[in-house]
């Protein structure tokens, strides 16, 4: 369990500095500057506080401005005067100030900025905590956060030295990278002196690989996230887990020794491991029986606390496992996984389609139904017109007509599309390119490809061997490749791309894959020779997920790292999973 790293694996940089930085800034802003004593969540309801000053710590969103405006105007109506302070994080946007002005309260509030963009959730995981990035960029085409990403990368390179090797794929990756480079050039000299601590950086857009993010997670950490939702590195375990009448907020990271050993494990191993652990623990407790007083004193003062702590964690995770098993068996989890695997492998499409239809008809869950439809669409390069219409009709009948807008969103993001008759498209393309100049043809092709973003999943899957050939049973206890995170059925595409590029140290030989990803213009490599980069640092890789990454991907890359003697560090706009992606695309009645 919890395979050790190779002895030559590099040490991770110390990210606690980032945490301290952020915390100190915030405490300063809240306490010193504004003397804040109590925190409330920003919700659209009147503030009950009687204090003379209200301070809002918000994301720069128009919705939040409207909320603040309502509150201030309500105070004004009531003849109440107090001071208002808005702290924008990570930065203030002009549009927000505009709204404050339009709502007539610009003069009543004062504004501040908290330039906080990186939260270390774990020793190897940095999150920008920007879940809205996904919808803003991939659906609305809003590029506002790209600057924030560039700033975050700039901060990292100032603290940990520049990155000698840079790779990336995706439009957003390229824009972020270029903006970041510009920042570095402007502030030349600051980073130059530092010895690079991290040898490689890899930027990847979420839309390069929707498939992985849409799959049900079966490694423990991912499953906990799917089942209980991990927020900011901690999870609320309800009474069914804690086996008491209270909920418990539990931090999930490498410091939890029990969790650290099972987080990357396939769920089927976890229960066995935990019960073994419980038996060992019992044995350690039992040692007390034969002790004399002196030994007992030692035991109580030195070991007991650790054992009790372990005991507590153990019972929590056992509780979580039980709860997961109960939920998963109820909804026939095995059937679901089987269908997903069939979709990934591309067989029994009709059967899978009927399964999805039944899923919708039975109103199992709007988000799950949607997820399966998207998975079918992406793996099949779009739904055939008949299915596209009928599944959507069924969905609207089950879950309500407002989802007509959800479908419009999904289509725009390329998550749920209608199969374009492939031949026709290429025929039009070639005809057009004969008629007009190259440049214009490029533009027209762009327009076409945005109309029907073809995922080409099947072709990519073949090219990159994403479906491992299995002779006999896949031993999930001793994983042989990254596919173990999906029960041996599928190697996550995103992770495979990263693996391939790192192996080659470039995109060379991956032209076909890049073309299939519709990303010929947006795959880049940039190497600067830095002799000061130690061989250790060259085995440290920072992977940047723009639009979110899942715990399964993290587990898979951790596994790859152990195999190859690398260590991966993850920087993501937010940790995500299939439900979060689908919710971001859904229209709900407000």
């Amino acid at each position, binding site marked *: 369990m919890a395979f050790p790293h190779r002895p030559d694996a590099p040490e991770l940089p110390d990210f606690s500095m980032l945490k301290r930085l952020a915390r100190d800034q915030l405490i300063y802003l809240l306490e010193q500057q504004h003397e804040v004593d109590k925190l409330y969540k920003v919700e659209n309801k009147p503030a009950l506080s009687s204090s003379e000053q209200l301070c809002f710590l918000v994301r720069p969103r*128009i*919705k939040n401005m*409207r909320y603040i405006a309502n509150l201030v105007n309500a105070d004004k109506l009531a003849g109440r005067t107090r001071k208002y302070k808005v702290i924008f994080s990570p*930065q203030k*946007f*002009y*549009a927000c100030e*505009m*709204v404050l002005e*339009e709502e007539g309260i610009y003069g009543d509030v004062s504004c501040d900025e908290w330039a906080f963009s990186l939260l270390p959730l774990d020793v190897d995981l940095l999150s920008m905590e920007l879940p809205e990035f996904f919808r*803003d960029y991939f659906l*609305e*085409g*809003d*590029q*506002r956060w*790209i*600057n924030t990403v*560039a700033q975050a990368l700039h901060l990292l390179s100032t603290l940990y030295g520049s990155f000698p090797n840079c790779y990336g794929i995706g439009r957003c990756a390229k*824009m972020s990278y*270029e*903006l970041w480079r*510009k920042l570095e050039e*402007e502030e*030349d000299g600051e980073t130059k002196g530092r010895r690079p601590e991290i040898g490689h950086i890899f930027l990847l857009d979420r839309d390069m690989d929707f498939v992985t993010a849409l799959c049900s997670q079966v490694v423990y950490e991912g499953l906990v996230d799917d089942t209980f939702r991990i927020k900011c590195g901690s999870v609320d375990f309800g009474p069914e887990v804690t086996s008491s009448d209270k909920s418990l907020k539990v931090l999930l990271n490498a410091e939890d020794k029990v969790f650290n050993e099972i987080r990357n494990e396939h769920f089927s191993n976890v229960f066995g491991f935990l019960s073994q652990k419980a038996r060992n623990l019992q044995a350690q407790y039992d040692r007390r029986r034969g002790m004399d007083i002196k030994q007992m004193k030692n035991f109580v003062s030195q070991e007991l606390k650790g054992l009790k702590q372990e005991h507590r964690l153990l019972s929590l995770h056992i509780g979580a496992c039980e709860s997961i098993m109960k939920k998963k068996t109820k909804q026939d989890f095995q059937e679901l996984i089987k269908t997903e695997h069939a979709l990934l492998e591309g067989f029994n499409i009709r059967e899978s389609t009927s399964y999805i*239809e*039944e899923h919708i*008809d*039975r*109103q199992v869950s709007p988000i799950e139904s949607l997820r399966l439809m998207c998975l079918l669409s992406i793996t099949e390069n779009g739904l055939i017109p008949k299915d596209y*219409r009928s599944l*959507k*009709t*069924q969905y*609207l*009948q*089950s*879950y*309500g*007509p*407002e989802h*007509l*807008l959800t479908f*419009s969103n999904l289509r725009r993001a390329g998550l749920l599309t209608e199969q374009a008759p492939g031949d026709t498209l290429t025929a039009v393309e070639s005809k057009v390119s004969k008629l007009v100049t190259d440049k214009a043809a490029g533009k027209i092709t762009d327009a076409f490809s945005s109309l029907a973003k073809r995922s080409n999943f099947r072709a990519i899957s073949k090219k990159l061997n994403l479906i491992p050939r299995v002779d006999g049973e896949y031993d999930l206890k001793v994983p042989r490749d990254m596919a173990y995170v999906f029960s041996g059925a599928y190697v996550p595409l995103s992770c495979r791309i990263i693996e391939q590029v790192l192996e080659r140290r470039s995109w060379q030989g991956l032209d076909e894959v890049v073309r299939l990803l519709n990303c010929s213009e947006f795959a880049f490599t940039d190497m600067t020779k830095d002799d000061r980069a130690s061989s250790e640092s060259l085995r440290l890789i920072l992977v940047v997920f723009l639009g979110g990454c899942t715990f399964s991907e993290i587990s898979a890359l951790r596994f790859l790292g152990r195999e190859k003697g690398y260590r991966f560090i993850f920087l993501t706009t937010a940790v995500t999973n299939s439900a979060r992606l689908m919710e971001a695309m859904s*229209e709900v*009645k*407000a």
Partner: protein
Amino acid sequence: MDCYTANWNPLGDSAFYRKYELYSMDWDLKEELRDCLVAAAPYGGPIALLRNPWRKEKAASVRPVLDIYSASGMPLASLLWKSGPVVSLGWSAEEELLCVQEDGAVLVYGLHGDFRRHFSMGNEVLQNRVLDARIFHTEFGSGVAILTGAHRFTLSANVGDLKLRRMPEVPGLQSAPSCWTTLCQDRVAHILLAVGPDLYLLDHAACSAVTPPGLAPGVSSFLQMAVSFTYRHLALFTDTGYIWMGTASLKEKLCEFNCNIRAPPKQMVWCSRPRSKERAVVVAWERRLMVVGDAPESIQYKQLTIQVLLDRLVLRRLYPLAIQICEYLRLPEVQGVSRILAHWACYKVQQKDVSDEDVARAINQKLGDTPGVSYSDIAARAYGCGRTELAIKLLEYEPRSGEQVPLLLKMKRSKLALSKAIESGDTDLVFTVLLHLKNELNRGDFFMTLRNQPMALSLYRQFCKHQELETLKDLYNQDDNHQELGSFHIRASYATEERIEGRVAALQTAADAFYKAKNEFAAKATEDQMRLLRLQRRLEDELGGQFLDLSLHDTVTTLILGGHNKRAEQLARDFRIPDKRLWWLKLTALADLEDWEELEKFSKSKKSPIGYLPFVEICMKQHNKYEAKKYASRVGPEQKVKALLLVGDVAQAADVAIEHRNEAELSLVLSHCTGATDGATADKIQRARAQAQKK
């Protein structure tokens, strides 16, 4: 030996002094200095002279003339004074000449005599005229203090950030004070004034009487006062010929001296040698100079920093010298050479006789892409001089597109600003430009501009979605984007409209838009929704309860749960609900009602399109094994084993599996053989397996 001391003269009993000329003044003065207003800038800065300041004649020959000289008397500028009478002159810390007029207007000139700006000291000053004025320096900048004809004081502590402060009245003050000065204590400017035998300290809140400690008695008037450059020390000269020296806080006396001269001195100032701890006051009369020293103390002057020195050279347009100094001192480019070059360029753009092309080229040749040079700053200066075209040319050299934007906006080149903002990748900047454009252009042009900039368009749409819904609609209309228009009205049908008629109307508009967008699916779905809404309304009217906004599925379910089976059937037919869905739906609803009789009737109404396993499942979910068993027998052979296991009939499940000779089914049953009674069944399966292997 005596040649060394030959030029030393005795001063008092124990000191000697010598006098030697540092340099002679280059100027050629015709007037007596006493007839001029004179101001010398600190740190050896320029000297300003205003000749004939008090003449009011209009004749050009006797009009006042303002001359500016360097500290060594080199003429820098000379101009005829055409404004009002000047009361006082003084230099700011930035070497700007402040000329305080009688009417309270302050005119500001550069050291080359170039007019910079003017400001007023306020209405009160304008009405009562300026009696006396002082320019003073604090750590915040240079200030102006005014004594008006009404014997009130007005001051501004920093003319760079003008805030006028009218000081409180001095009780009983009927005539001008005999002498006054500005003080700066605790970062606040004060005024100290003498009225007869009394001293008053004015701050912006109060007027308080103060007494210098250890002052000899018999004083009936103070004739002169002087405060040191750092505002730490104060000297007072009394009508008894007595000099009091102490701290400016008036808390401590340093020394006193009786000079026995009762005539008012012309001038009294503090002085000291650099780095010396000795402090002294110099008092001057018409023909006499007196130096009064005090005890040593431990402060040092702050030296001029190298940056200030460079600034001064730049002000004097001595660019090459400044650059040589930078190079000699090996200053980093950004602080040194680049900065000087940038100043040079700003000067260069003011040369009106050179063509735009030549200026731009000359500047680019010299500056290239020197780090730290901001072409946009230089361009801003060019624009300030009215050279818009030159400004645009210079902006082209600016590598950071974002930096170009503010000036382009100022110059009303908003469309260019928009593309530069987009190039910069800074969405916030793009948005700023957008709002500019929106105010500047008419709606049609604004939309056209957006149309060509997809990134800006999506940004603006986002804004409209939250803040200006009507504009959003217009945007879609303009683009003939019927798909989005349809979506817009769909959203309106449940987000903004409340009455059912309004909602249906919004849906109708949406459906029309979808037809135009050739999205027949969405159009039909929308029309279905209109029908459903109307129907739900009718159901609420006729049956009561809540139907509006339920999905079709939930509407039918609600009808069944309410016992309105006929209605449910009708609805299902009207909306062509597929059989499979209807069966799932009814099955679930009837089981929820635990209406087992109706469920059985329903199951027999025709052959189930979803098979009978779901019946078994749902009965077991409601813990009704009896009913479940009824359906288990009807489950088709493929799912028979599953059904039997569900109702707990392991033995029969084993029989069926054996009969099927299906290995997967056999192991499934085996995994269910957990009870004590299942031993025999397990054996049976093992035997069947063994037999199957033999064959």
